[in-house]
């Protein structure tokens, strides 16, 4: 009897520990990652900068646009440009902080399945993107109403829901590019430099080449992802344009993302 009493607690001890803790739900991981996007100086000021740029852009349109240019498209477009450029940086920092700041040592020991953390980061990235654009469209609408009221012209709503969807889609692709570069480089500085090359250097080269070489002008839609992404802002893509977007997207976005993810799952976290 006494041996049974002695043994029981030892046997029972690990069993109690095992049943006691429920698995961490995905929404908890998403919630924590959302918080992490705002709780550092860089993250906080980046989001403040995005909001400030939106308000400034609205002000600029109000101040400088001629009466005939005072339309919803001008407002939304002016707000959209800084957002298109800055939002991908949010995506980059969400990923690279784990490595550049080495916070991943804690993150990936608390949630040992890296795929869950990365998926949560992607959900947060897209959510921030959608929320920011909704805000931009709302601020633009407000600017449009106030602006046309002040100047005594008719309020023009010249942005169809379809073109709004195209713009949102294009910006989300931009954020996914940032996310991909973060995953691929795992380094804040490297990813941001890579992003601006991706965004400004490659398209310029491609444009110059297309202007000088007629063979490339024909080939461009089939190789230049940025070119096809740009088409989204104009809306109304043909079947062939969708195909070109899909092919270039697969090569310039999906493939490097898959390679980066494959490495992230296996790499050491130091």
């Amino acid at each position, binding site marked *: 009897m006494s041996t049974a009493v002695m043994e029981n607690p030892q046997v029972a001890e690990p069993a109690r520990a*095992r049943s006691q803790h429920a698995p961490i739900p995905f929404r908890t991981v998403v919630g924590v990652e959302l918080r992490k996007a705002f709780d550092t100086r860089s993250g906080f000021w980046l989001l403040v900068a995005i909001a400030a740029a939106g308000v400034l852009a609205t002000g600029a349109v109000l101040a400088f646009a001629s009466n005939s240019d005072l339309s919803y498209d001008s407002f939304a477009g002016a707000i959209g440009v800084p957002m298109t450029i800055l939002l991908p940086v949010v995506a980059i920092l969400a990923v690279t902080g784990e490595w550049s700041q*080495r916070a991943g040592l804690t993150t990936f*020991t608390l949630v040992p399945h890296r795929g869950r953390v990365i998926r949560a980061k992607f959900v947060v990235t897209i959510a921030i993107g959608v929320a920011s654009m909704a805000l931009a469209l709302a601020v633009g609408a407000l600017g449009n109403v106030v602006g046309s009221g002040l100047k005594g012209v008719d309020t023009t709503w010249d942005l169809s829901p379809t073109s709004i969807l195209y713009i949102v889609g294009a910006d989300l692709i931009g954020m996914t590019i940032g996310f991909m570069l973060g995953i691929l480089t795992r380094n804040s500085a490297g990813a941001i430099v890579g992003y601006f090359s991706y965004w400004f250097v490659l398209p310029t080269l491609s444009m110059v080449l297309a202007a000088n070489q007629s063979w490339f002008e024909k080939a461009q839609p089939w190789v230049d992802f940025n070119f096809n992404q740009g088409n989204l802002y104009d809306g109304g893509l043909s079947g062939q344009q969708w195909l070109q977007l899909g092919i270039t997207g697969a090569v310039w976005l999906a493939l490097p993302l898959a390679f980066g993810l494959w490495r992230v799952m296996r790499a050491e976290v130091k």
Partner: protein
Amino acid sequence: MIIVESLTKTYGGFTAVDNVTFRAEPGRVTGFLGPNGAGKSTTMRILVGLTPPSSGSSTVLGRRYADLPNPGREIGVLLDASAQHAGRTGREILTLAQRTMRVDRSRVDEILDLVSLSEEESARRVRDYSLGMRQRLGIATALIGDPEVLVLDEPANGLDPAGIRWMRDLLRGFANKGGTVLLSSHLLHEIEVIADDLVVIGNGRIVAAGTKSELLEAAGTFANAAEPAALARALTGAGHSAELSLGGVRTDADTAQVGQVALAAGVPLTELRPADGAGLEEMFLELTKDNAREEVAA
């Protein structure tokens, strides 16, 4: 309980961890001792899934680390106190851990209190923390989930003497309540005072493992005489080992036997005591020396 079995990690041709097997038992503090670069940190990283092993396995509380449903509630980990986002405050880092583990919000204040970080300090950003404060924050992160197992890599680094004493008491208390503690150090004396069990690693291999008393007993007896060589001869003549070293003779005979041999041989002793950590220390210095030589060669 931590079980590490035949763990090996190679980087190209270099073997950082070589067939390492050991256990850390509940209710005991296990010291993981070895010179810098011996493979301690790599072993610990493999244990918590941050580094994939080349071969071998490890479990925590009977499960692979990746299979723990909420690891922070079962094992507290501190691998590098400086590995935190420098732009977050101490309190924010604890809040993130508290939310991930889904423990009560009040734990943040409780744990800040436990590691003696003040309200004002917790509101500062980690970039303005001293190494000692980062260690305290790291220990707080490890303890916030109220785990049964603690894994700490060089936790005494950067702590002042009072901090080291505090840490020792904390770990002792944790083990006395039935917890498992695995802590690494490259300082023998630091670990000698706190550990119950020792695992000594050098160049990726386990070179000694056992309870502290076993390892210390194995050290034998240290004696000295006016003529140490004569004493050594007498001991060897009586069938004991005798090793002449600086300032005396180390032997596997116990103190009473050495006294008898010396009396019979007419060699007056000037010193006679258990060798304590001397054997362990020599072994450890030997390891460190090998390591230092390698660095010079490279």
